[in-house]
Every structure is written in structure tokens, then in C-alpha cells.
């Protein structure tokens, strides 16, 4: 089992969600995050002068899938989150030791 953490542009969420759902990955957790990378930030204005906001708002999608499903899930995310500009985000894949479904107590593969 692997956990996929994908940092994406806010406006790409719907497309990514839909593509994952079409590949039958329905469950996910989405949170609002701030971060920085090659995009470097954007300039904003005060009353006078400007300042640089280098932590930009992004969304983080977290989902846990079987090892063999990882390439398909990553592919769905990359195809739908990409614009080609800096700031498209990153995907991290982490090993998962255990999964427990709170309602039933089911474990691991049965709980994904």
C-alpha cells in the first residue's frame, strides 16, 4: 500500500478528482496548503509599494492505493493537474504500514 500526496493548483482539483474517480479511486482527503517552489511567489500591492508573497496557496490531495495502482493514479493526477507553467505542483509517494477502517475495524487492503 502506498500513500500518494499530490500538491496541485487549486483550479485543477475538479479535473483531478474526476479523473481519479473514473479510475475508481474515490476516497481522498483534500486540504488547503501554502508552499513554495520554482514558481517563487507573486507580487502584491499595499497602499503604496509592493511586497512578495512567496508562500502560495495550493491544494494537497492524499489518497492511499494498492502498490500496483500507483502508476495509474499518478498518471491520472499528472495528466489533469499539468498546465506546463511553474507552480503545477509535486507528487510524493510514501509507504503505508497499516490501514484501519474506523466503522468496521477492517484492516489494510480490505480497508482501502
Amino acid at each position, binding site marked *: 500500500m502506498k500513500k500518494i500526496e499530490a500538491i496541485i493548483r487549486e483550479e485543477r482539483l475538479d479535473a483531478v478528482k474526476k479523473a481519479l474517480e473514473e479510475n475508481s479511486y474515490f476516497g481522498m482527503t483534500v486540504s488547503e496548503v501554502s508552499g513554495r517552489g520554482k514558481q517563487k511567489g507573486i*507580487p502584491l*500591492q*499595499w*497602499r*503604496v*509599494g*509592493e*511586497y*512578495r*508573497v512567496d508562500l502560495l496557496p495550493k491544494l494537497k490531495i492524499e489518497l492511499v492505493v494498492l502498490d500496483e495502482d500507483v502508476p495509474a493514479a499518478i498518471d491520472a493526477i499528472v495528466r489533469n493537474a499539468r498546465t506546463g507553467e511553474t507552480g503545477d505542483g509535486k507528487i510524493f509517494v510514501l509507504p503505508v504500514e497499516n490501514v484501519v477502517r474506523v466503522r468496521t475495524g477492517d484492516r489494510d487492503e480490505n480497508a482501502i
Partner: protein
Amino acid sequence: MAVNAGDTAWILASAALVMLMTPGVALFYGGMVRRKNVLSTIMMSFACLGLVGLLWVLYGYSLSFGADNGGFIGGLNFAGLMGVGQEPSSVYASTVPHLAFMIFQAMFAVITIALITGAVVERVKFSALLIFSALWLTVVYCPVAHWVWGDGGWLASLGALDFAGGAVVHINAGVSALALVLLLGKRRGFPGEAMEPNNIPMVVLGAGLLWFGWFGFNAGSSLASDGLAASAFVATNTAAAAAAFTWMIVSWFHRRPTVLGTVTGAVAGLVAITPAAGFVPPLAAIPIGMAAAIICYYSMVLLKTKLGFDDSLDVFAVHGMGGIWGALATGIFASLAVNSAGADGLIYGGGITLLKQMAGIAAVGAYAFVVTWVLGKLVDITMGLRVGQREETVGLDISQHGERAYGGLLR
């Protein structure tokens, strides 16, 4: 003279309009600070409604409008509203109850102190600010209000014009704010760290309430429901419009037409028209407002960006410089045809009026700066003006008030 129903209705309504400006300032300022200081910033303004609302009826009104002492300060003959009743005063606003004039004036004192707080937000100790405010009302506001508006006040006798408080409210507040900034120093992290406004829509709401309330402030200062009130009303709106529009263009010229800048422009225009509203023809409000936006904008650039003063919410740039420009503009554009109790300004051949305005600016500015500095120093030595490093870092909402503006995880 007898009480006039129309005049009384308008003055009472105007007092209510000016009252609403203080919560307006609270929101205007509150939206501009960081999230951890929004409540403390709002509280600094709102607390003035409590503190000054009490002190004014107890003795503040009397020190400002009581029997003259050498042109400098009023006596205590109106202390505790003694002799201030339902009949008109013998010298002020002769067609409305003395009580109505008194409470209208109360709201000006409240908002003047609220305005100052914008310079010291995010680092001033609340208890120290309250003590300072009480002292400042007594030793700065009341005398200056007496000079300009009191019967026998020396600036009034000189013939300096201040229709609705350009000197008493705005120059007074702006210059005092600057003195406090010099005493208090910068916020931790200024100017390196970006200190992002937590809620610009709240700033817009506050500016909207200010603009609305300003009709009471300026048109109410006619002290009658008459043609002069209408003229001041139109001048007020026109100046705000001209300044908001001009600031927007200047901001656009520097990059983008910002919302924060545009509403700040409106306030700068309202400040500048304040002393002039009932003395100048309504169309003079266009150059007054346009110049106000440009003067206040570049004052901000100079003070904050170039000189590095942390006048956090630009009180001196907007109220000090806007007020000074307004006082000068009154000396330029005033016309006896608009208000026979006024004077002709420079463009109508009354150069002497402009000189009197300069005297007024210098006197109020110098007095406010020096006395505020002394009062601030006094409070600083005795109880400390500034919060500790940890309190500042945590934020004043929690460290001063034990509250936070935006709640926890559970919705």
C-alpha cells in the same frame, strides 16, 4: 432663540452619523492588520466610545466649550453638564438644544482619539493606551477644540477657518500619531517581513461607514438644517469621489488599481474637505480631493518606504498631511459667497486668509506634537507604552484581550 425642529432633527441625526464613524474606523483599521491583532485594533477604537463618552459629559465638553480662559481653554462651568439643558446655548448653535450640540461634539472627540490608534497598532499596551487617551483628551483635544471652536478661542478670534475639524480632528490626530510612532518604535519585523492585511473587505466596509458618517461630520457642522448644510454635503461627497478616483489612477500607474488604495483615497479626500466643506463652493472639492490623493499617496511613500517610519496604518500621511492640505485649501478656495461667516480665500483676493490658515496649522501641529510626546513619554516611563516581545509575537488579541477573532477548528 427658540429651538428649531428641523435643525434639532438634523443635529441629532448628524451626531448619530458621526458616532457610527468610530466603529467604521475600527473596521477600517481592523482589516488592515495581521490576523493576530484584528480584535485589539478594533478594541482600540471601540474603547474610545466608552472612555471618551464618559469623560466628555463629565468635564471634556466643559474644557472645550466652557467659559473662556485667555483663549486657551474652557472653564469648568459646564462640568457634569451643569447648565447644559434642553434650551439652546447662548453662544453655540442657537437653534438646537444645548444638549444636542454637546453630544454632536462628543462624537468628534471620540473619533479623533480612535484615529490616532492606527499609528500604534500591533504593539501598544492596551492599558497604557487608555491612560494616554484620557490624558490626551484632557490636555490636547480639549484645548485645541477650544482654540478653534470655543467662544473666545484664540484661533477662532484670529479668523482661522476650520468648518468641521481639519485642525481639531485631523491635523491634531495625525501629528500626535507621528509623535507616538517616534516614541514607540517599529513593530517587530518591520519593514522586512510582509505584514499582510487580514481582511480587505472589512476595510472597505469601514471606509463605507466612514464616508456615510462623514455627511454628519461635515454637513452637520453647519449646525442647522439649511442651504449651507447641503453645500457642505455636496462638497464632501465630491471630494471623496475625486480622491478615490485619483488614488485609483495613481495606484494603477504604479502597477494595479488596488481596492485598499482606492478606499484609502476616499478617506484622504474626506479628510481634506473637512475644514473646507462649509466655506468653499462645492466644485472646489474636485481639486481639493484630487490633490489630497496625490499628497497623501506620496507622503506614505516618503514616510514608510523612504524614511522607514512605522506609522502602521498611515495616520500621519492620511490625516496629518490630508488635514494640512485641507486647511491650506480652505485658505485658497474659501468664498464669502458660500458662507458669510467665513472669508475670501487666496483666489478671491484674500491672501491673508491663507496666512491665518498657516498659523492655525503651525499652532495646532506644534502643540499636538510636543504635548503628545511629553504625555507619551510620561506613560512610557511610568507603566510602559509597549507590550513585551512575547506578547507582540503571540499577537495582541490573545495577549491583551484573551480572545481571538477567528475561532478554532470546529465549525
